């Protein structure tokens, strides 16, 4: 587990700490197609 944390831990912690408060989660995410045009360009 320590080895796994050494490999992936720093990036996962950076993801937790990232300031993404202004980023919306795509409400109707469907990976079979492009994001809906109703979904704005990633951020508020």
């Amino acid at each position, binding site marked *: 587990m320590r080895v796994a944390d050494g*490999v992936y831990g720093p990036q996962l912690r950076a993801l937790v700490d990232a300031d993404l408060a202004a980023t919306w989660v795509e409400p109707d995410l469907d990976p079979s197609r492009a994001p809906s045009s109703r979904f704005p360009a*990633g951020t508020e």
Partner: protein
Amino acid sequence: MSHPQDLSLREQAAAVATGELDPGELLDATFARIEERDAALNSVVVRFPDEARRMLSEAPRGPLHGVPVVVKDMFRLPWYAPTDGAPGEAAPAGESAVYRRLRDAGAVIAGIGQCHFWGAGSTGHISAWGPCGNPWNPAHCAGGSSGGSASAVGARLVAAAVGTDGGGSVRLPAAYCGVTGMKVTFGAIETDGYTHGYSDMGAIGPLCRDAADARLFCEVLTGRALNRGDGRPLRVGVARDPWWANLDPEIERACDAAIDAAGWERVELSLAGAEHQQAAALVCLTVQSLPMLRPEDLADADPVLRALTKFELTMTPVIVYQAARIRSLLRRAAADAFTRCDVLAWPTVPAPAPPIENPTVELPSGRAPADPGNLRQTGMGNLTGMPGISVPVGLHSSGLPMALQLQGPWGEEARLFDAAEHLEEATGREFVQADPFTAPARSST
């Protein structure tokens, strides 16, 4: 005639259709080739001489009439329960959508391709079936998790194999083994009967020796025509950070040279959220797979996978939501990028296939396990759902293949095949025609 498995998929199909090649003799020759070459590789871990002959006797005159293929150990077959490369059954025997597509095309399933344990790794060195060797050097990894499918095609045991790709598992072994592998747009190939069909990261895809074969096989698997166009006048998006950073220098040069050889217009760009895409891919894969694990699965798991799973169980709801935000950001960024370019291009893997005994790679940042760097190169395709293809572009000084990955807008598989065919032509088809068992570059160390 040379050995029939030295023919391409389309040549085999045409020769059977015209009567030039007897499909029974083709099947016998295929099993003989597997017997001859696979002892050192362990790519086709279950063989179906009886079921294949029964399929052949009932095969319709479809586009792959009488042509033997291999499928990864993740699909239900009427006579076979897939294992995901772990002990025991991952799903009961039955009909998968892939089986029905192959059967209706007249193809013959010759066997099962080795799979990394649970499909949870990019090297193929951990599996209940044992490790799978690389056709260019059996002491090196074939890749994963569709390593058996890639190795079998690379070794010319069959001309086509089916793989699956939840985090790069078609494209990565294709790159390691010097074959062409396509991850289709999410959902473009039906996932019914695919053991990871619960995931919205996973897609199915063809592995073949070149793009024209992969196009034909993809048409069979998707059930739709992927008409040939012109792959020359393309704008290629090059996003340096992070996908062109921390690479083996020979791979970086080979991929750069391939783009130059193709004569494509380069568009330098950056994608918002890219710095977190590797972590987001790991989180999304984990969140979707952990609930599927039964307690007994963990108890029986390989120690490495068990340790990784315990680590993954420490993930918090906060990181899951952060990953969802990054996924959304990346999808929007990719859609925006495709208004400026036709395809995105970066190396499929950062370094050539590592040794089975020590699956680490040498990068400018130092020696590291192969998995994280591989996921960095391919996770974007799974997060966004867009299609991607890995195309051989050279041989490393170690004697192992190198590959360029091209990704396109959702539903544009045909564009990627066009681009890959043009790239092959621009590089003289040298790297898709090489037979590792006869090529002078093959290493034995």
